[in-house]
């Protein structure tokens, strides 16, 4: 049994379907990246997992964490799950901390939200947590206010708050989008390290394929609220299956050393993600897809083969499968090979 099992997760606002029958699972100690353009329903998926979709929105489907069905849980028990079993890190570290409280107070608050620790013990635990996210001189910085921390440091504090109760699952919603590139790498390393040391499942929501290559074990590509592809990271980068994934990769600049390669235009994907409620019938990507044909008028079924899945009628997954992609278990190996 996986740590997190999601079945047919659906979020709708009236007639607009924002997340459409999404199914996936996350193992303990595994990193799943959810990738897609803005407006694909990535963040809404994260909110739906913790049942925090704002009122007019309705959540359907099943979410099981460690066998516990979250969808049927009464609100009071759900609140005990939030923070305690699932932690969330948000995108913007600048607004993630309360400016009037010291960093120590905020981390201690998070600790005490789910444990009966006294003020002194919570403070000690807060120092420990800040140390865990590599804030230098953690003890002395407990009494500083957030404005004395840089963006990267604040994101570290936000992560410390999210893992305060030792959650089984950490959801990081674009945790590095608002940061400098060098800081991005540090934060990703930190998340990776915490995942490994604490044995957490990690869901990394991002639109940055570089982040995916760096950290994820498995990738789920979303488009217009639907899963269009799921693969192990090495497989995805070696052979992206869905036309959307291929276009996403084509839209990413390549940096090379030495002789500059002949100038190439970046291949942007024409058009925009359809708005929820105005999703075209059939394959949602067809209007923007260069390979679209008459067969795209029907919603493509999700083909599965092993742990790979793709939703495109032009790809025959079973036929492709023999061209086996080396399945390295140790990620440092393929990272080095890349």
């Amino acid at each position, binding site marked *: 049994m996986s740590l997190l099992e999601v079945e047919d997760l659906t979020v709708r606002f009236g007639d607009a379907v924002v997340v459409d029958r999404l199914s996936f699972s996350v193992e303990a100690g595994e990193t799943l990246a959810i990738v897609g353009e803005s407006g694909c329903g990535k963040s809404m998926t994260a909110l739906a997992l913790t049942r925090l979709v704002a009122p007019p929105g309705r959540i359907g489907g099943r979410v099981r964490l460690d066998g516990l069905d979250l969808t049927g849980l009464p609100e009071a028990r759900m609140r005990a799950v*939030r*923070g305690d079993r699932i932690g969330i890190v*948000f995108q913007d570290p600048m607004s993630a*901390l309360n*400016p009037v409280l010291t960093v120590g107070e905020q981390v201690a608050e998070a600790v005490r939200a*789910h444990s009966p620790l006294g003020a002194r013990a919570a403070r000690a635990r807060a120092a420990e947590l800040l140390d865990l996210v590599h804030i230098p001189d953690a003890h002395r910085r407990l009494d500083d206010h957030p404005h004395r921390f840089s963006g990267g440091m604040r994101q570290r504090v936000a992560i410390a708050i999210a893992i305060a109760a030792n959650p089984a699952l950490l959801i990081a919603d674009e945790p590095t989008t608002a940061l400098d590139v060098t800081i991005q790498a540090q934060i990703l390393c930190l998340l990776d390290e915490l995942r490994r040391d604490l044995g957490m499942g990690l869901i990394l929501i991002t639109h940055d394929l570089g982040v995916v290559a760096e950290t994820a074990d498995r990738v789920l590509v979303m488009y217009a609220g639907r899963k269009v592809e799921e693969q192990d990271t090495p497989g995805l980068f070696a052979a992206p299956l869905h036309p959307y994934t291929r276009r996403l990769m084509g839209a990413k600049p390549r940096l090379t050393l030495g002789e500059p390669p002949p100038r190439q235009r970046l291949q942007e994907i024409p058009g925009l993600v359809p708005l929820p409620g105005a999703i075209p019938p059939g394959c949602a990507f067809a209007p923007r897809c260069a390979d679209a044909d008459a067969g795209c008028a029907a919603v493509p079924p999700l083909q599965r083969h092993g742990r790979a899945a793709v939703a495109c009628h032009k790809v025959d997954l079973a036929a492709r499968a023999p061209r086996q992609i080396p399945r390295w278990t140790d990620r440092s190996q393929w990272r080095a090979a890349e």
Partner: protein
Amino acid sequence: MSLSTPTHGGMPGGILQRLMRTPGLRRLRGSRALLVGLLLLAAVVAVALSAGLLYPGDPRDMAGPAGTWPGIDARFPLGTDMLGRDMAAAMAHSAGTSLTVGIAAATLALLVGIAAGVLAGYFGGAVDDVLMRISELFQTMPSLLFTIILVVILGPTTASISFAIGITAWPQIARLVRAEAVRVRRLDYVDAAVTLGMGHGRIVLLHVLPNSLAPVVVAASILVAQAILSDASLSFLGLGDPNGMSWGSMVGAGRPMLRTAWYMTALPGGAIFLTVMGFMLIGNGLNDLLNPRTPVR
């Protein structure tokens, strides 16, 4: 830079300069309004606190010949009124009443306004609608008229006057706090607190309330000034506490003598002016200090 040269205040190399250089007070330099306001307020408070010492006994007792102009009799530096009561004693004793009413009314307005504003802004929806419609109910009525009606119904005592002024003044605070709470409610640290599984009460007290109070600090001092003015208006109209002295009632009482003895009106009027001015200056000064958009002078 003019800031580094000793040109501030009227005392060359004086205490003021040295005071300004202590770290806590250095920021006061940026706002002369705040400093002047604080000095005015300190003077009024000092007078109010020392009234009982300086002028023991009832200020309503006849103390000397009626209608003595200020500066004529050394016993009565501010003169006497038409009944021979010491103006200085009356003014000193009134200071306490004015401050009490002003601060009590403002406190009430702040408590009700902040509570209503934070709840409306945080919960939104039906709670917001109900609270804001109630506040509009209060705002559509002319507040002085409303206050008068309440005082007439409740009877004129210091407590009822404070209540009447405070209860008509809270909607402006509620709206101010609500706007801030709506802004704060959408910030990530509130979302983060929700994802941590914190309850509403804890989130409001810990995150939303403290971050919604900045504009209230400025509004509070202006609120006190308004309350003092309302109190003065009430007593001028003869609706004040009949057992107490107040600047407003002194102005009202001195009105018939305006042509022959204008000091009876001008002195308490000036006291009201200076006190209100003090609070207004504090409000403006705080605004200068706390508002990051004000250019540093």
